[in-house]
Each structure stands twice: as C-alpha cells, then as structure tokens.
C-alpha cells in the first residue's frame, strides 16, 4: 500500500454523541479490510467471553459471567483485535525489498498496515537490512551479548501492557536471575502517578471500585479522560449508572463527544433514539487545573460543614480511620479563589454548583486517566482527589471510591507480577526463596531513566516485550538517539512498528503470537491470564490459528532466552515453564500474595477478584489509617503568547498506532498533523483558522523542540490550551519534564508557542 499522505485535512463540526450505528459500521469496515468474514466473526464472538480471549485493547473490566453480551466489545476493541488477526503477512522478502533506512521514513500507519511479522529477523553490525535468522541463532546471539556485558545493569527489559501475567512473571524472574532490576514498563508513562498517590494515602496502589460500584453510585466524576475513544465499554457502565438514577460530572479541557451523549448499539434505544445523556454537568477546565478544582471543592465542603456542622463531613470515619485532617483543613482554608480561577478557568459559581451536586450525593466515585497523571503535579492532584473522597467517607464503602482507568489490557497485572524497578523487599524475598537465588537489591531504572542510561552509554542492550518504545516515549529525537547508541536492540512483537527501525548496532525482531491465537506447547494448548483495571484476574484462551508456524509465544521466547543466557545457573525449570504454563502459575501462587490456588481459581468462569484491603476496612499504610495530605497549590506556568499543549490520541488509534487519519468524533478527517486551539486564542495570537503552523516546545534546557507542518483548527478547547496527537507531538515533551515522585513524562502539560510554518503541506513524518 502507499503511505497515506495526510495532506488534505477535512474539518467538520465535532460530534455530540458517540457509538450507535456508525461505530458498528466502522468496526466492521476496518475488520473486513484486514481479514476474512470468517476470521472477523471468530474474533468478535470470542472477544471478552469467558471461554474466549481478553481484548488486548483496554483494561476495562468485563461484566460477571452470565451478564455478558454476545458482542462484548467496542468499536476500538473490534478494530484492534482484527488489526492483530489481519491476513496480511510480512515475510523475509519484505525486508529484502525495504532497507531499515527506508522503513524509518515510513509513517506509523504504513508500518502497521504491512501485516503480521512471521519469522525472526536480525540486523547485523553495519547492515541496513534485516535478514532471516533461526530462533536458536537469534536467542543465542542475544544471550551471548547479554553475557558479554560488564554488568547485568547494562541491560534493560521493557514491558508493555499487552504481556500476560505468565510472560511478565517469567521476564522479571529472568531479569532478576540475570542480575538486574532494570524493568521499565509502559505504566511509567501512564498511571505511575496514580499508583504513587494511592499507595501513599490509602496503602494500596490500585483503585478500590468494582463495575457494580459504578453501576450503583450516586455520582461519578470523569476527570481528564475520554471514554468515548479510549475505553468505550465504560460508556455502557455509565449508561447503567444513569438508568439507576446516578449522576455524572465530566471535567475536561475538551468537550469530548463521549462525555456528552452515548448511543448503545446493542439496545433499540441506542439505535433509533437520542441515546443517553452522559454528563449532567461539564466543567470545561484548563489543562492542569484539576488540583486547583479539587482544592476549591474541598474548601467549599469545609465551609459547608462550618455552616451546618455535622451534616457534610463523615466525622466518625475521619476521626477513627484517617490521619492528617487538621493540617489538611488548615492548609486548604488558605486557598485563593483568584488562583483557582486562573488555574481552572472556571467560575466560583460553577464550582459551587458542583459542590451542591456533591452534597446531594451519598456515594461518590472519581474516575481519571492520563489527563491527570501526565502533569508535573499529577501525584499531588490525585492525592487531593483522595482528600476529597475521604472527607465524606467515600473510601472503603460500596458504590464509592477511587477509580484510575487504565488503558493497556494487562498493565495492572504486569505490575502485580513484579514488573517494576523497585519491587518491595517482601516480594524479592519470596522470589529468592522460591527459586533459591538472591535477587539484586539495588533499584533499577524506569522508562525515563532507561532512556538517560542508553543515551550516556550506561545501558547497552534493550529488550522490549511488546510495545513500541520509541513512539510511546517522550522527546522522540533524544529517545531515538539513545536507542541507536545501544549495542543491541530486540523487540518481541506481533507487528512492525517504528521501534524496529530505530536500531542498535545489532537488532532483532522476535515475532510472537497474538492474544487471539492458539498457543500450542508440548504440554498441550495453553491459556494465559490477565488482571483488569478493577483487579479481576481471569483466563484468556486464543482461538485463531497462529499467523505463522514460525511464531513462538512470549513465554516460550523468554524461557528459551533465559535458558540460553543462564543455563543452569539458577534453579528455574525454564523448559517446564515453556511446556506448561500451569507450572508458572504454581510458582506465582507461592510468590505473589493473593494468588493462592491460582490454577484452580482462575479457571472458574470470570476468574477471581483480588480484594482491596481498603474495602475490608484495612489501610496498609504505616499508620494503619488513610492519610489526608497537604498539597501545595500548583498550576502550569505559561508565558504570554504561549499555549499549554496536551497530547492525545485520535479515535482511530490504538496507543501509538493510528489505524486511519481520521478522528471522526472531533471532526478531523484525513490528517493527523492538526493542532486544536480555542478560536479566541487563535485571534489573540494573530493567526487564522486553517493556517499552517509549527509547534515549538519551550523548556529551560535551550534545546529547540519543533513539530512542523500542523494545521491550526479552531476548536472548543479551554482557553490558553491546545491539543494535538501523539506520537507525532512526543518530540515536544522534554525527557526531563516529569511528574514529581512518579517520574512520568508530562505529556499533558507541554508549553508551546506557534509559528507560521514555511511548509505548505502537512505531510506525515515520524518525528520532527
């Protein structure tokens, strides 16, 4: 196929509702472009079913067994699974035809559309082509290079959230048996801020609500998230909330269609009616203003309690099960409304209206996503949300709580399995006892620190388990330079992406089975397990024939690599692990708390839930109580004439991979080099709607970060803010611009200025 040009953008008014018949039609259209009607039917009828496979699209939980629809997926899930089930294949001939340099000039979309990888490939030192290689040679080469390192800490083992629990457990075991804790993962760039804030304040780094809690809550906040495109099945749950009499408040810089109205295509009312209104109140907040909003809301609740003592706060809970309230309250009473208005762009009346909704609601849930987590002050913001929930006892009670909405399907499970550069002592001790070795004590590198280490030569080998590292990460030019300095880069992948074209001296492509495919091993057909965003652990059974007979499963690749690298240095039955995944789960059961009788429990329909101690009345914090925190007021500082950019994904995109150049809910068609700006800001900047502009990042290191050739689109985003798609704008996110504590890149708070572009056409390019 030709690389899509993207030079003819067509702009239409943003939609005010999502899903309905068009979502079904678009899902089918894309699916049938990729594969046959039979395979499409096979994938769609098995996705998210108890005997089928878990949708790799997102981590939103499935309804309980017996309550799932025959079509338990969304438009984006259908596209994603059929993107994986595509009939297109990449063979060695493809790599003869295209040099790596040529592939590096192709767009993300074009690379993805070439189809499934089918054979292991190697790029030797000095070569510009991938060549076929046997599995034995490929893994032997990687093992040899690993053994030749001066220190195990010169290797990096990255995980993306598609990896199963079994693969993640084997990878972290291998890395630690090899001798390093360098286990960065995609969480570092997503919900790391949530985990940090929740662990500190509640003692557990996960959310505490279930799907039923959402259904029956009195009030659900949606903050900094776009469920219509990023986790559309959430809309079904929110519709249930509304039908049960609950209310919804949306807080976002963009009035996303999914926050306005939803048409459920599996019900007649969604096909022919007006659908369900989602947000009862929409707060059009400035990017990065959420800390100020929740501080203002908390101040109003304290004042409401002052006016009517004993009617607003949950005094018994605060007294008995929390600490830090007095300091928190004294601090919040100093809040300046002028600062709040500047930070949020909201009026006091709007926030007071929200307070009234809160006071009329007994049980409240706050959901959030990347709009909160990817800011410098992300952790304080989420801590302030916890303060808000604690004030009225909305933690540890049914139909209430904190709900970080995770994107990648097993991102939560991978962390549970030990994919983290600083796992706690008790986990490391259990791992060491189980396998009779001493895991390394020194903490490893997260994603940002891994890039720094590759950049300055401290890291020499990069192995990626799934994902598209160079496109998911910030500061694209710097990151690509870091990868190119490696001795060896290797990726365990299903499809081609830009990370395969940004190579170390030696590069390996290790093609693997997709989630939807049958996994046959010597011990018989295997299944894997995953953990969803609400801590439900369940099985996933592949149902399709593999894309190639040469593919190995993730577990097989990692087990064989471990055997090649470590031999019998540690007492781990790598062969057994590869043959029979039950054996891995037996070991997980002995290492990871909460996984007792894992094999028995996970085969029950729907699997099992990991209970959250918070819901049992236990806060595993040092004090044994939930913690009110005192968070200094912060807001992004934007000089005059500049804008605050949030990077975002389009509706037709899955993580770093665009499926088409369209983003139909926002009215964008045929281009991704688009920047959305409020019309008043366009006028104030002396620009015009439709102009070609360059985006220039502003950061204090003196480096010019430029994304060129963008079309300026007048759009109802909040004043002073802008929005543009990633990964195209990752080039603007400085590597050193990270969230406090969590070290997450601040991809939702990038200061930019706009310059008229000398480019007349907005041609796609991988990075500026």
């Amino acid at each position, binding site marked *: 196929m030709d690389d899509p040009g993207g030079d003819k953008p067509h702009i239409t008014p943003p939609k005010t509702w999502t899903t309905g018949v068009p979502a079904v039609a678009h899902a089918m259209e894309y699916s049938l472009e990729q594969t046959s009607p039979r395979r499409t039917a096979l994938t769609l009828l098995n996705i998210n079913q108890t005997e089928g496979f878990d949708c790799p699209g997102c981590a939103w939980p499935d309804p*309980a067994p017996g309550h799932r629809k025959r079509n338990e997926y969304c438009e984006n899930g259908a596209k994603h699974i059929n993107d994986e089930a595509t009939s297109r294949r990449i063979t060695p001939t493809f790599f003869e035809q295209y040099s790596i340099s040529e592939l590096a000039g192709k767009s993300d979309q074009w690379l993805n559309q070439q189809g499934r990888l089918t054979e292991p490939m190697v790029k030797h030192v000095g070569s510009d082509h991938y060549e076929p290689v046997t599995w034995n040679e490929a893994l032997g080469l990687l093992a040899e290079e690993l053994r030749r390192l001066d220190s195990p800490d010169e290797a990096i083992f990255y995980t993306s959230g598609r990896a199963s629990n079994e693969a993640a457990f084997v990878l972290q075991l291998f890395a630690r048996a090899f001798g390093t804790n360098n286990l960065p993962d995609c969480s570092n760039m997503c919900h790391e801020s949530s985990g940090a804030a929740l662990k500190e304040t509640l003692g557990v*780094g996960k959310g505490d609500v*279930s799907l*039923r809690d959402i259904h029956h809550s009195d009030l659900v906040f949606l903050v900094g998230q776009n469920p219509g495109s990023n986790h559309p099945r959430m809309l079904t749950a929110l519709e249930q909330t509304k039908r049960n009499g609950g209310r919804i408040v949306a807080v976002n810089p963009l009035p996303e269609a999914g926050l306005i109205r939803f048409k459920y295509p599996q019900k007649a009312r969604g096909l022919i009616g007006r659908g369900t209104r989602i947000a009862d109140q929409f707060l059009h907040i400035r990017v990065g203003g959420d800390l100020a909003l929740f501080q203002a809301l908390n101040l109003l609740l304290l004042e409401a309690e002052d006016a009517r003592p004993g009617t607003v706060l949950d005094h018994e809970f605060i007294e008995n099960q929390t600490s830090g309230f007095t300091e928190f309250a004294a601090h919040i009473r100093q809040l300046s409304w002028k600062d709040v208005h500047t930070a949020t762009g909201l009026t006091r009346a709007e926030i007071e209206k929200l307070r009234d909704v809160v006071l009329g609601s007994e049980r409240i849930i706050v959901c959030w996503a990347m709009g909160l987590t990817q800011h410098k002050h992300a952790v304080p913001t989420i801590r302030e949300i916890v303060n808000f929930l604690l004030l009225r006892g909305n933690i540890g*009670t049914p139909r209430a709580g904190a709900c970080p909405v995770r994107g990648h399907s097993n*991102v939560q499970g991978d962390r549970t399995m030990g994919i983290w550069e600083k796992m706690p002592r008790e986990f490391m001790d259990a791992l060491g006892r189980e396998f009779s070795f001493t895991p390394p004590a020194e903490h490893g590198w997260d994603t940002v620190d891994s890039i720094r280490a590759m950049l300055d030569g401290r890291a020499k080998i990069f192995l990626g388990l799934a994902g598209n590292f160079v496109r998911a990460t910030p500061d694209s030019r710097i990151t690509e330079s870091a990868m190119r300095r490696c001795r060896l880069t290797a990726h365990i992948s299903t499809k081609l992406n830009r990370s395969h074209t940004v190579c170390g001296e030696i590069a390996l492509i290790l093609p693997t089975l997709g989630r939807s495919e049958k996994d046959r091993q010597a011990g018989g057909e295997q299944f894997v397990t995953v953990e969803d965003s609400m801590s439900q652990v369940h099985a996933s059974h592949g149902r399709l024939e593999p894309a190639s007979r040469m593919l190995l499963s993730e577990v097989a690749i990692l087990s064989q690599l471990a055997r090649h690298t470590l031999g019998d240095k540690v007492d781990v039955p790598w062969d057994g692990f590869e043959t029979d995944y039950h054996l891995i789960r037996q070991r997980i059961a002995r290492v990871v708390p909460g996984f007792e009788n894992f094999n028995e429990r996970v085969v029950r329909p729907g699997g099992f839930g990991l209970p959250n101690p918070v819901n*049992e009345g236990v806060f*595993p914090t040092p004090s044994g109580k939930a913690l009110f925190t005192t968070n200094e007021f912060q807001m992004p500082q934007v000089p005059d004439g500049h804008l605050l950019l949030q990077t975002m994904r389009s509706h037709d995109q899955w993580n770093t991979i665009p499926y088409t150049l369209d983003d139909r809910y926002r009215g964008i068609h045929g281009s991704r080099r688009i920047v959305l700006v409020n019309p008043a800001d366009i006028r104030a900047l002396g620009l015009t709607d439709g102009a070609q502009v360059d985006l220039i990042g502003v950061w204090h290191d003196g480096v010019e970060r430029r994304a060129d050739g963008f079309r300026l689109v007048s759009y109802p985003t909040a004043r002073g803010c802008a929005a543009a798609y990633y990964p195209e704008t990752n080039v603007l996110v400085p590597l050193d611009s990270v969230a406090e504590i*969590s070290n997450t890149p601040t991809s939702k708070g990038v200061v930019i200025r706009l310059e008229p572009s000398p480019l007349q056409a907005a041609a796609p390019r991988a990075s500026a």
Partner: protein
Amino acid sequence: MTIIEKSVDVDVPVRTAYNQWTQFESFPRFLEGVERIDHPERTLTHWVTRVGAVTHEFDAEIVEQRPDERLAWRTLTEPRHEGTVTFQSLGPVRTRVSLRLDLTACGVVEKTGSALHLARRRVHRGMESFKEFIEGHGRETGCWRGEIRSGRVRPDPAQGSPPVPTWPTG
C-alpha cells in the same frame, strides 16, 4: 400493608444462627424461589430469584452487620425493598430469629394483593426452612465475624486483612 415480618425460634446458639446468615451463598438451600446468591464483596450481594417462569436479578447492599445481633440490607435495583434480620439469644442453645421486610419502595406490581401474599408466604416458609436447616446441621456452614456499619466494613479480627499485592500499580 407493605411490611412482612416473621420470627422463628431455633434450637442453636445465637452465634450459630447468626453465622449461618452471613453465608449468603447458602440461602437457596432454604429460601424458596432463590436460585443463586453471589457475594462478590463484603457489602454486596447479587440475587437471582425465580417466580414461576420469570427470573429476577437484583443487587443488594448490606448496610449493617453486627455479630450475633443484626443484619440489614437494601436492594439497589428493582424490586426495591429493605430488610433486617435480628438475633435474640433465648438461652445457650436457643435463639429467636426475626425477619422484617419493608416493601414500601417496591413498584406497584409487587404491591398487588397476590404478589404480597406470595411474598409473605415465601418469607414464612423460608424462615421455617431456615429453622429446619440449621437445627438439622447443628452448626453453621461458615462464618464471617467482621462488622459492617453504614456500609463500612470493620474486619474480622480473627481473619485480618486479605493478603494481596499493595505495591503501586502504574
């Protein structure tokens, strides 16, 4: 009248009678028309009931649970009702178990004479069946001795907190 009440005296200690009421999954064994109860969270039960050919499913929140004293719940979906069961020790091996169902919030259909009559009959039979069940067994099939007050759980001191990963999830 939309209140249904029924008491039975059972020949087991109050602890045994109370403990059995914490085992919601066992209710179909003595409650007619209850096909299944799931107990996914301490404070939440999901009921599947059957009347004739019609199956109803509803969620009920347990709002209060005090060992050897009282259990109270309210449904979160139709058919709306609230219920309490109290336990009064009448001696070392004798307990009065009293059930009260308030159907005030129910829909019109559930409040018709025949529907109420059916509900009352089932409640009465169910309580008699419970007596038969627990006296026949002589001991509870399980227990949870934690407390729930205003929907908030206080853990069973004997069991403590469940072992689960608590490290941050990114």
